[in-house]
């Protein structure tokens, strides 16, 4: 007969019996099996003596004075709550009638008098094994609960972090409609939106690998770059490059940001998109029902260096009936009861002309698809409406502020050579330096607009020799941008020089901006108003500069443009 039950510790038994012979006999047999034995003469004494730390198994007689075995068992079980200590009922031949009650009260097994040592040994061993497994499980359960509560609080922290990071610079736009479920946010989906100084609308939809805290932390630098650069008027290409740069330095090898950056340009009715690893987007016209698929054609961000990225930017000429639908993979993969994913077709089926809201249709259809089996709430859906009506724009114009810097006399100039122009749009940097010198922040948007227009004309028509009549058709429009990119990459000579001079004038000053290029010159009168001129909203271009500026004239065969901008302190009140 095996003497040792537990290699480490001597097991402890509590024997409860009102008969001293019974206690003695069972106690002796258990001691033979290497148990340390404590005895009690009735249920009450058993309860008084019972210490869960000092008991591995209880032998309980059924009929006893003061408190019987069944009631004592019930009370012991209550005291143990989740813990498990085996209780074996000691029964004589006539106690079969109690069996049910014994089990109900929490008994685990029975042993009949007279005792058989082999059966006693086998039963106690198997129950002790059960106790061991049970307490290990309880321990694990506690660990899991503790872990879960840490994780829950991390979820909360991540969600709060995310909210703050993203909300910090978010400029709501009536053109942007979105659903981002809490689970999607937790999974690292981000949506950023901002207007630029020239009233373009920049949008970023992203999906980080990893989730929770990790993704929230990584979304912080991405959001900072996006909002900071949008406010300074950088284009989505430069913003994408910079986000990629930051993330490449920051993220571990196996993490990246799949993202799409879109820019809606009110002036040209142009939608530019850079797609980096998100599922196909759809450009849908709710008037004609035409549906264009826009697949991802760049690497996700944060994987390779920006210098190797060679971003492909696409340009679409859009009308107010067109909407760009973007989503991350959660919605595509959402499964129904039979495991079929919602898929691209689930979305396409909802994109039909003349429906009041295809967006709502997609959500409704998705809910129906997922049915009763519990919604997977990892849903991100974004709709960018290409609506150019004036009430959707100019929402964030600053109220006039005072120019704090005393108007003074100064000049400054910069020259950008062809290789600088390839990698840099100089306008934001130049405008920032003007703001620093003369504190012209209240006029930032106007100055930005003027300088952008003069610079773009110099670059496109001066150095790159692009024909603006291309832009008069929708197909030519995309071709124009393609050609521009191509010629810019091939540009091997030439430069553009910027001269700024300022002097006090009345209650403000005069800023003269001169932009001169080394190209072949062009006839500014040949600049065809962009196709948008046919619409109710006329192209802003040169006409707008003429409105903003005191004067604008071209000289040296169109190679030099000079604009004078007069500013006055806003009247108080």
């Amino acid at each position, binding site marked *: 007969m095996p003497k040792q039950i537990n290699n480490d510790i001597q097991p402890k038994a509590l024997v409860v019996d009102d008969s001293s012979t019974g206690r003695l006999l069972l106690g002796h047999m258990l001691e033979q099996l290497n148990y340390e034995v404590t005895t009690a003469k009735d249920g009450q004494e058993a309860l008084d003596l019972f210490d869960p730390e000092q008991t591995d198994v209880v032998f309980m007689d059924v009929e006893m004075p003061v408190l019987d075995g069944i009631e004592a068992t019930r009370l012991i079980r209550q005291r143990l709550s989740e813990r498990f200590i085996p209780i074996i009922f000691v029964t004589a031949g006539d106690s079969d009638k109690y069996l049910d009650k014994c089990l109900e009260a929490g008994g685990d097994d029975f042993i009949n008098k007279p005792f058989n040592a082999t059966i006693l040994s086998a039963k106690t061993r198997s129950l002790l094994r059960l106790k061991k497994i049970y307490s290990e499980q309880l321990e694990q359960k506690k660990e899991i609960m503790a872990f879960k509560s840490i994780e829950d609080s991390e979820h909360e922290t991540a969600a709060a972090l995310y909210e703050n990071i993203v909300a910090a610079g978010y400029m709501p736009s009536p053109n942007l409609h979105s659903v981002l479920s809490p689970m999607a946010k937790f999974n690292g989906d981000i949506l950023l939106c901002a207007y630029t100084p020239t009233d373009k609308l920049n949008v970023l939809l992203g999906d980080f*690998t990893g989730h929770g805290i990790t993704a929230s932390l990584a979304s912080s630098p991405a959001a900072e770059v996006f909002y900071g650069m949008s406010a300074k008027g950088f284009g989505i290409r430069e913003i994408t490059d910079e986000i990629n740069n930051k993330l490449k330095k920051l993220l571990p090898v*196996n993490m990246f940001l799949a993202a799409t950056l879109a820019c809606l340009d009110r002036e040209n009715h142009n939608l530019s998109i850079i797609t980096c*690893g998100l599922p*196909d987007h759809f450009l849908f016209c709710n008037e004609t029902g035409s549906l264009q698929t826009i*697949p991802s054609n760049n*690497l996700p961000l944060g994987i*390779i260096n920006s210098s190797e990225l060679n971003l492909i930017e696409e340009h679409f000429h859009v009308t107010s009936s067109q909407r760009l639908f973007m989503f991350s993979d959660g919605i595509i993969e959402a499964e129904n009861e039979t495991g079929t994913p919602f898929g691209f077709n689930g979305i396409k089926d909802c994109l039909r002309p003349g429906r009041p809201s295809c967006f709502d249709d997609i959500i409704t259809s998705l809910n129906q698809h997922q049915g009763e089996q519990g919604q997977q709430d990892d849903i991100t859906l974004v709709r960018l409406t290409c609506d150019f009506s004036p009430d959707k724009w100019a929402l964030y114009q600053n109220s006039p502020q005072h120019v704090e810097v005393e108007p003074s006399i100064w000049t400054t100039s910069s020259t950008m050579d062809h290789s600088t122009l390839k990698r840099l749009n100089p306008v934001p940097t130049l405008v920032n330096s003007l703001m620093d010198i003369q504190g012209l922040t209240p006029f930032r948007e106007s100055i930005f607009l003027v300088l952008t227009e003069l610079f773009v004309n110099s670059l496109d028509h001066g150095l790159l020799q692009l024909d603006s009549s291309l832009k008069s058709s929708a197909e030519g429009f995309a071709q124009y941008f393609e050609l521009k990119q191509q010629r810019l990459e091939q540009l091997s000579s030439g430069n553009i020089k910027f001269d700024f001079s300022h002097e006090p004038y009345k209650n403000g000053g005069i800023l003269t901006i001169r932009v001169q290029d080394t190209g072949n010159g062009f006839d500014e009168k040949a600049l065809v108003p962009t196709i948008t001129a046919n619409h109710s909203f006329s192209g802003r271009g040169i006409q707008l500069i003429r409105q903003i500026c005191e004067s604008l004239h071209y000289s040296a065969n169109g190679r030099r443009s000079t604009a004078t901008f007069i500013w006055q302190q806003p009247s108080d009140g």
Partner: protein
Amino acid sequence: MSISSQLDNNTLTVSISGQFDFSTHKAFRATLDSIDKHVKHVRVDMRTTDYLDSSALGMLLLLKSKMNDQKDAVALVNAKPEVKKILEIANFGQLFTLN
């Protein structure tokens, strides 16, 4: 999910069955650790891969990094159309040999 690998001369073939996602992480890491300097090429055989998520894409990037970012050092082969679609969305053809 299961990962098995076989070394033939300088080429290590790694076969991934079923779902290639975060649950594969540990096994994939072990495979990465087994790569020594004698391995010149890795073929990731996706014949029996059913699904790929973004953490799997991350693991492939780790593999590429382990092979010193040589473009032709890692080939992703035999992917089913739905798996290939995921690789294409991520434009991983720029980083790996796909066929």
